């Protein structure tokens, strides 16, 4: 044995081992030194937070939510946020949503957050986020069940999702088909918040059915029933009103129209509209669509309540209120007759409307 330790082969092996060990120790010391330099200016609490939290997400792609997180009020920033997240989703990147700097949040943003979170989780792509610094924003998100679902719940890739607690004012649903029983139940619950009793609101029911049917039939180029629709419903018991935020991440209205194949009644519809109305952009086209002119031009017939014009008609009949539509590069607020082009493109359709005590309803 003694003889072996003195052999050149052993000596060489031992020197190599010692060198490696020393290198590892030096490397570790260097890392500790660098880390201490980095953390020199941090307080004890900041250091604790960093070790407990930030270090764990250092390989996540961080996406900052807009300060004014409202699809209705701030559509461009919200669309930019959605597009960044969509990029992460398509690349299957670990994603961290930074909500800390959100100063204002609308309930329509909740449907966006929920749909994004569930899409990531159902595809097993790590997804996380921080808490908003503002207490009221944090409370809204906590009450919606967002953080509870974010931290604790796993989602499988399913056709239907249903999130939110029964005692909470906000509920989110998702499905690929048309579900008239669900929409009727949602409206029944809304009517209790608004009128204090169960009522039927046929205009609101029609609005939901037309939107579900549109997503089912037109949201995908490939096949029908391919995309989810997402619906968040917020009950404002103080002001006796309920707001509905509906979103699908399909192709959007204009992309869908321009991709209709020969044989479809909407084939070449955009060209026909340009020829007839000489309109300049998609904002004007959306106005024509909502007024039913697209259907009339393409089919030569009145739209008879179908699709988006049917929803606008429900607004005119005072069956719903405050209709806002965002699709592709257009924002519209039908109440103000405000149709404007956006600088960013939203691949999908977002619709928000309200049901309140002034709207028409029927006894149950």
């Amino acid at each position: 044995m003694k003889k072996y330790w003195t052999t050149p082969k052993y000596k060489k092996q031992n020197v190599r081992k010692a060198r490696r060990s020393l290198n590892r120790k030096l490397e570790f010391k260097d890392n500790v030194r660098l880390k201490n330099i980095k953390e020199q200016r941090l307080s004890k609490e900041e250091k604790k937070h960093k070790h407990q939290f930030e270090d764990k997400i250092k390989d996540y792609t961080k996406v900052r939510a807009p300060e004014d997180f409202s699809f209705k009020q701030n559509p461009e920033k919200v669309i930019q946020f959605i597009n960044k997240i969509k990029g992460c989703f398509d690349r299957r990147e670990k994603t961290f949503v930074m909500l800390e700097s959100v100063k204002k949040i609308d309930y329509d943003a909740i449907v966006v957050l929920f749909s994004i979170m569930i899409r990531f989780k159902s595809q097993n792509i790590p997804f996380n986020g921080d808490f908003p610094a503002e207490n009221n924003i944090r409370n809204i998100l906590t009450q919606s069940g967002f953080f509870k679902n974010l931290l604790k719940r796993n989602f499988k890739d399913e056709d239907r999702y249903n999130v939110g607690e029964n005692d909470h004012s906000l509920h989110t649903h998702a499905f690929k088909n048309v579900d008239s029983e669900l929409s009727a139940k949602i409206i029944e619950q809304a009517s209790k918040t608004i009128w204090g009793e169960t009522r039927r609101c046929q205009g609101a029911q029609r609005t939901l059915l037309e939107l579900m049917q549109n997503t089912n039939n037109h949201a995908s180029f490939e096949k029908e029933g391919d995309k989810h629709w997402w619906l968040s419903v917020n009950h404002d018991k103080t002001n006796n009103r309920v707001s509905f935020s509906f979103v699908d991440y399909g192709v959007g209205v204009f992309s869908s129209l321009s991709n209709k194949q020969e044989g479809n009644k909407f084939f070449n519809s955009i060209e026909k509209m340009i020829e007839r109305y000489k309109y300049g952009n998609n904002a004007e086209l959306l106005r024509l669509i909502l007024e039913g002119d697209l259907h009339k031009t393409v089919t030569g017939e009145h739209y008879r309540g179908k699709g988006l014009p049917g929803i606008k008609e429900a607004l005119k009949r005072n069956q719903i209120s405050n209709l806002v539509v965002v699709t592709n590069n257009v924002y519209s607020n039908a109440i103000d007759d405000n149709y404007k082009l956006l600088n960013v493109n939203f691949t999908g359709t977002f619709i928000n409307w309200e049901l309140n005590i002034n709207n028409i309803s029927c006894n149950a």
Partner: protein
Amino acid sequence: MHKIEIKIAKDFVTTPGPRYKKEGSHSGELFRDTILYPKLKEAINENIILQVDLDGTAGYGTSFLEESFGGLIRENNLTIDVINKHLQIISSEEDYLCEDIQHYLEDAESKRKK
């Protein structure tokens, strides 16, 4: 003239759904296949009126109505004249639906003629 009556909320469902069966429950296709067409056929054979009452439901999507009534011409090969002779639609809650359905029938008839 005698009448057969259908009240959709009572005889079919209070929550009418999409156009086709594949798109969800309580579709217009299902309503036409199982209730509307058999009853209308009965009314035609007995030379009486079929009255369809639309009231009492949660509300209708247009696809449901178009498929139910327009489909009588497209799928069941009835003509608008026969339908108008034997079918009466009533609604006091949403009176505009009667006019819409008449137009769905006319549209389907004009497409059939083409």
